[in-house]
C-alpha cells in the first residue's frame, strides 16, 4: 500500500512539474528562448490568489480567474518590454535578460509582500479520499492537480491542431521568416504564446501552493528549475514531452526518496536526466524540428 501511496505522491508532484514545464516548452518552441522568469510568474500568481482570497475574502474561483488574468497580462508585458527588443540579439543576451527579469520579480515581491513566509490556504476544500480502510489517503488537491494537468495538456494539443492561431504557432516554431512571408503575424503569435504560458503558470502556482502550502518570494524558483529539467527530460519544445517529463521526474524523485535514500533524491533525478540525454539527446519525446509547437 505504501508503494501505491508513493506512486500517487509522485504523480501529484509530477503533474505540477508538468504544468510548469508546459509553459517553458511552449515559449521555447516558439520564441526559441528559455524564459527563466517563468517560475517567478508562478510566485506572482500565488500572491494574487493569497491576497485576494485570504486577505479580501474573494471566492476561490474568482481569485484563481483573477490570478490567471493578471499573470497573462504580466507575461505579455514582460515579453513586450524585456524580450521583444532583443529578438535579433544573441541567445545569450536574451537568457541573461530572462534571469534579470526573474530577479526583478523576486525583489518586487519582496518589496511588496515582505520576506515573511505566508501560509497558503488550499483553494481545494474538498475532503481527502480515503481508500482501503484509511491506509491509502489521496488528498483532493492531488486529484484536482492530476485532472487539471491532463485537461490542460489535451486542451493545448487540440488548440494547436485545430485552431488557426495554433497553426500559426506551429508555423512560427518551424520557421519564423517563412511564417512571416506566409502572412503570419509573428509578434502577435509570440505574445499569444507568452499569454498562454503565463496563464498556465498562474494555475500551476495555485496548485503548487495548495499542495505545499507556504509562500515566499522565492517559492517559484526551485519548482521552475525542476520543471525546466522536466521539459528537457521530455524533449523541450514538445507538449506531450513536457507532460511525460514532468510526471516521470516527479515519480523518480519520490521513489528515489522512498526506496533509495532521502538524501540522494535530487542526485538520482539528475543522474537519470544525464543518462536519458546521453542515450537520446533530444529528450524522451523530442524530435528534431517536427511536431514542435
Amino acid at each position, binding site marked *: 500500500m505504501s508503494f501505491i501511496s508513493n506512486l500517487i505522491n509522485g504523480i501529484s508532484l509530477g503533474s505540477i512539474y508538468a504544468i510548469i514545464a508546459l509553459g517553458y516548452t511552449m515559449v521555447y518552441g516558439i520564441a526559441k528562448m528559455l524564459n527563466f522568469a517563468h517560475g517567478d510568474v508562478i510566485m506572482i500568481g500565488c500572491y494574487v490568489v493569497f491576497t485576494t482570497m485570504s486577505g479580501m475574502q474573494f471566492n476561490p474561483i474568482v481569485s484563481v480567474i483573477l490570478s490567471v488574468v493578471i499573470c497573462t497580462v504580466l507575461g505579455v508585458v514582460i515579453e513586450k518590454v524585456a524580450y521583444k527588443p532583443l529578438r535579433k540579439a544573441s541567445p545569450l543576451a536574451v537568457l541573461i535578460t530572462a534571469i534579470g527579469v526573474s530577479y526583478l520579480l523576486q525583489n518586487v515581491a519582496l518589496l511588496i509582500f515582505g*520576506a515573511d513566509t505566508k501560509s497558503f490556504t488550499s483553494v481545494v476544500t474538498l475532503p481527502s479520499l480515503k481508500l482501503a480502510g484509511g491506509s491509502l489517503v489521496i488528498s483532493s488537491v492531488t486529484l484536482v492537480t492530476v485532472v487539471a494537468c491532463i485537461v490542460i495538456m489535451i486542451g493545448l494539443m487540440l488548440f494547436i491542431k485545430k485552431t488557426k492561431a495554433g497553426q500559426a504557432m506551429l508555423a512560427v516554431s518551424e520557421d519564423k521568416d517563412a511564417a512571416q512571408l506566409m502572412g503570419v503575424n509573428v509578434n502577435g503569435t509570440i505574445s499569444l504564446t507568452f499569454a498562454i504560458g503565463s496563464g498556465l503558470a498562474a494555475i500551476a502556482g495555485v496548485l503548487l501552493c495548495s499542495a505545499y502550502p507556504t509562500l515566499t518570494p522565492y517559492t517559484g524558483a526551485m519548482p521552475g528549475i525542476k520543471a525546466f529539467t522536466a521539459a528537457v527530460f521530455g524533449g523541450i519544445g514538445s507538449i506531450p514531452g513536457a507532460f511525460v517529463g514532468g510526471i516521470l521526474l516527479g515519480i523518480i524523485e519520490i521513489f528515489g526518496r522512498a526506496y533509495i535514500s532521502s538524501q540522494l*533524491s535530487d542526485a538520482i533525478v539528475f543522474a537519470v536526466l544525464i543518462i536519458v540525454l546521453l542515450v537520446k539527446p533530444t529528450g524522451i519525446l523530442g524530435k528534431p524540428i517536427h511536431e514542435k509547437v
Partner: protein
Amino acid sequence: MKKAVSILLVAAMAVSTLAGCGSSSKKEDAFYIGGIGPTTGAAAIYGTAVKNGAQIAIDEINEAGGINGYQIEYKFEDDQHDAEKSVNAYNTLKDWGMQILMGTVTTAPCVAVVDKTAADNMFEVTPSASSTDVIANDNVFQICFTDPNQGTASAQYIGENKLAKKVAVIYDSSDVYSSGIEEKFVAEADNQDFEVVAEEAFTADSKTDFSTQLKKAQDAGADLVFLPIYYTEASIILKQADTMGYDPEFFGCDGMDGILSVENFDTSLAEGLMLLTPFAADATDDATTKFVSTYKDEYKDTPNQFAADAYDAIYTIKAAAEKADIKPNMSVSDICDALKAAMPEINVQGLTGGDEGLTWSETGEVSKQPKAVKIENGVYVGM
C-alpha cells in the same frame, strides 16, 4: 581687548568645528556596538527580532547611565542571510567606528564574518548563530546553545520525560544547523530509552514535498517526529501530516520558534507541538514580563527567543565590559583582549539563562539550562 575678542572668536570657531565633528564622525565618549543580521529576505523574522531585542537592552542601559559611565551607540546592518552581504555589512560597520560586534544572527553568514573579526581581533558575541564553526576562534562567544548541545539536550529531554518509544527524524541534510543537531540527537538516542526508527533527509532544493518522509515515519511506527529544522518547512510538514491523517507528537528545536507568526498559518495544526527553546514569552518572572511588554509596546509583536538572545547578548557585553573595565578610547584589539579574558569569569542573569544564569567557557560556548515549551491554544506554555 581686540586680542581677547579674536581669541574668543578662534575658540568659538574651534568649538563649532569640534561640534561639527561630533555630529558627523565618531564620539570619543561612547562605545560603538554594531549588529548584523537579516532584516529582509527569507530569515528576516530572526534578524528583525535580534535588532529590536538588542535595541531594548541598549535603551535600558543608556538610560541607566551606560557601560562604565559611557553611552552606547548602536547601528544594525542587514545581510539578508547572505555570507557575502554579511561581510560587506561588517566592513560598513567598521567604517562607522564599530568596536564590538553583536552578530551575526544566522550561522552561514556568521561563519564568513568570524574570519574577518578574527583577523581584526574584534570582540564578537553572536546571539543565535549556533554552529560550533562559529566559535572556532577565541574572540567569538555564543548566547544560544550550540547545535550539538541542542541535539543532545533534545534526546535527553525526550528520553527523561518518556515522550515516545519510537522516534523519527526529518532533517535538512544541506543545512549545517539541521544536520549538526540530527547527528548528535541520533548519537545520544543510544543512551536513552527510545529508538530512532527513521532518519529522513531533505535538501534546500527539494523542500516542498515531505509526504514521502512522513510516510516512511508512519510506516516505521514512529509516535514522535523530531524536526531539527526551521519553521518554514515545519509548517508544510505539519500540514501534510494532517492531510495524510498521521498524528504523532512533533518536537522541534529553536529553529521552530516563529511557526505561530507565519501569516495565515492554521495554528491549530501546531497544537501540541513541543520545542526546545531557552525563552518562553509567557513566563511570569519580572525580567521576562517587563521585556515582553516593552517589546509589544515598541514593535507590536510578541518577542521570540531571538529577541531574548539579543537582549542577553547586549547585557553580556555590558557585564564583560564592566568586569574588564574597558574605556571607549581603547583600540578595538585591546577591547577584544580585555573582554576575552573577562568572559569566562562572568555570570549573566539573562532572560534565557534560567535560574543558574549564563556562563561561558574559554572556547566561547555558553552553558545554560534548556527549557521546553508546548504549544497550547496557540501560545507557548512552559513544560
